[in-house]
């Protein structure tokens, strides 16, 4: 039996089980925290950082990602504040660098909610938008689907992107497990033409 933990989220006393994350605890109390790279069926990944909240412990305040941070007794959590809203707004604006302004899905609705100007950094022409925020949901979903990574991340840092591994491309044509999971609305259909470039095409500069 896991222990019960009592904490305070947005002034509300919330009971949670030990081992739960702040995000899960908030959700159980009906408090919404925005997420992009999180999916309740998968392990938390902690990459998009949109779910940041402010925690206070022993009088010290910190900002943490609620999807990964475990609940603690007596913790005070704030899910909204001018600072958190500012950070979320900036994260959405930064995410648009790879995603572009023309996105759908969660990113678009959150941008509206947080008043984010998705063209703020895209106007600097830093990349060719690829309608992807590299949240890794499809990649992780693909591992789950037993295809053993038909798609995966390639490249490091700003060169990071998602690519299809040619020897497993056949799998991608028939599976639709990642369909609809994408927060930018890029993967709206899979099938004969998966929406991912082949890694070989990236390496040879054909893509």
């Amino acid at each position, binding site marked *: 039996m896991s222990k019960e933990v009592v904490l305070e989220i947005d002034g509300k006393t919330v009971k949670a089980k030990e081992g739960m994350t702040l995000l899960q605890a908030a959700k159980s109390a009906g408090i919404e925290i925005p997420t992009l790279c999180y999916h309740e069926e998968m392990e*938390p990944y*902690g990459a998009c*950082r949109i779910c940041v909240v402010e925690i206070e412990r022993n009088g010290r305040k910190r900002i943490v990602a609620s999807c990964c941070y475990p609940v603690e007794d007596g913790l005070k959590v704030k899910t909204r504040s001018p600072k958190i809203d*500012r950070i979320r707004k900036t994260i959405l604006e930064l*995410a648009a660098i*790879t995603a572009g302004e023309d996105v759908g899905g969660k990113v678009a609705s959150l941008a509206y909610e947080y008043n984010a100007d998705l063209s703020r950094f895209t106007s600097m022409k830093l990349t060719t938008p690829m309608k992807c925020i590299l949240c890794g949901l499809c990649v992780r979903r693909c591992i789950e689907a037993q295809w053993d990574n038909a798609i995966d991340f390639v490249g490091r*840092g700003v060169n990071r992107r998602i690519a299809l591994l040619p020897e497993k491309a056949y799998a991608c044509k028939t599976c639709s497990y990642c369909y609809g999971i994408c927060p930018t609305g890029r993967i709206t259909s899979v099938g004969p033409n998966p929406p991912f470039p082949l890694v070989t095409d990236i390496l040879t500069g054909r893509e």
Partner: protein
Amino acid sequence: MKEGCKIPRINSPEDLEKLREEILAKRDPNRPCVAICVSAGCSSLGSLQVVKSFREELEKQGLADKVDIKATGCMGFCELGPRLAIYPKEIFYFKVKPEDVPEIVSKTILKGEVIERLLYKDPVTGETIRKLEDIPFYKYQYRLLLENNAKIDPKNIEDYIAIGGYKALAKALFQMTPEQVIEEIKKSNLRGRGGGGFPAGRKWETTRNAPGEPKYVIVNCDEGDPGAFMDRSLMEGNPHLVLEGLIIGAYAIGASQGYIYVREEYPLAVENITVAIQQAREYGLLGKNIMGSNFSFDVEVHKGAGAFVSGESSALMTAIEGKVGEPRPKYIHTAVKGIRDKPSCLNNVETWANVPHIILNGAEWFLKIGTPTSPGTKIFSLVGKVNNTGLVEVPMGITLRDIIFKIGGGIRGGKKFKAVQTGGPSGGVIPEQYLDTPVDFDSLTKLGSMMGSGGMIVMDEDTCMVDVARFFINFLLEESCGKCIPCREGLRVLNKVLTDICEGRGSEEHLRIIEDVTETMKEASLCALGTTAVNPVLTTLNYFRDEYEAHIKERRCPAKVCKALTAYYINPDKCQACLICLRNCPSGAIKGERDIVHVIDQEKCIKCGICYAVCPFGAVEKISPPVPPPVRYGIKVKRKK
């Protein structure tokens, strides 16, 4: 070790003492010995050739079995390498070339004469100094960890045992319980030398008490900061010291398996630690029933593929698991859930190297060195625009001024000090007004910089602070793993913004972007690479805001570094029409003839700076903003009287 030698397995502390006595008895303290540094710095300056020449020369003079040659680790003063020490007289020579060897053998080794020209020469007074402790570079240091680098051959375990090696391990295993070892380390307040400054004893205790078996201990030698080589020198020069610390730690924590993560770019470190592990196993100091005790522990070397981010503890552990070295959320510490979700205690090379000293001499002794909150010494790699560059080990609490001006000998070429970057690329710059700050973990963090693993880059007045920030951001941009949005995209934006400012396209909006993006990166990045990446930008902006404003508002680079904001101009009052600059200009941008003042065609100039460097009269000037006064071609030269 000589072939055919029987390896004595050590089965008790008495065995170790007996072996030590035997080794010492075999050695004649009066026998001449030449210790030559063959570590990375000196060997790239040719010290391996010097070793070879010594071998040949001694052979030739029939002294091969009368004089020892020892290839040792780094002695610190890398700039003046290859460096060698001649024992027992303790004569130290610098910048030794293979040609000097016959003279050294016939004069110094045979007759005991000192060769003046190879001694250290003070760059300021011009005097030669014979004794090491009189050389300012060494005088103010406290070489607790580095001292023995010059005395031992890192590939020979007997050298290490001879100077008291593995005594601390014997003490820990046979006179202390694991709890007592942890207590001692906790009492000593040893803090993580990798930069974070987290108390090592507390980390050990957390791992010991965390549920889960097996437990792991790890040495982090993924040093990747530009211009830093502290861990490398310890690993190359004294691998057994690190190994001994690790074994003691493993005993205290209850770990049965250790990993030493060394980057592949350090081939000598990999080689030396691999040899050290092999020898320790043969001597019964590693493996089953260490030194005849009940404690068993073994170590594996893991070579890193060179990603800077893999120095971050969770990324390093992911890499050891065989996956891509990317950090993961660490709200549950790696000390509790590390490699394969098992408790894993990771410490930096230097932290482990301190352990044998603390166990042997006691926490009380350790607390007397340095400051109460940061006891002990710290190794820094002092580089940049100082007269003496190299590895320095100082007691904590020494001021930056002492390091830069007393040990470092001040700024090169009589220039003015501007700032010092501590803590590597994610550290910050510290300006002149804080030079009297004592160096310890807390005071550097307070200034917006950090201790980091110990890089120290000194900058003079000719350094543009915006350009410095851009350089470090660019480095981090290349090294970010790209997993989280704030770090990956934040660095991309900062790099673009700083480049714009350096190239004269800056605006007030750029400063606002810096403010927003740095806040988000600092608060919301996944790992410390992202949260600290803002330090170079924030500290330069904080201490040198006027430089940013000069770039943005006046299109001027005060240090005259940013190419787009500077121009070269020939001062007509100084030009002697010597044609030198004109002949050297690679783009044919200089017009001139005999007796006619030369003029640079700004349209054609590529700003390579060759004219500036070659002009014997100092007539070529750098100007910023890049608008030279109108010059008419055809002015007659004003000859100097």
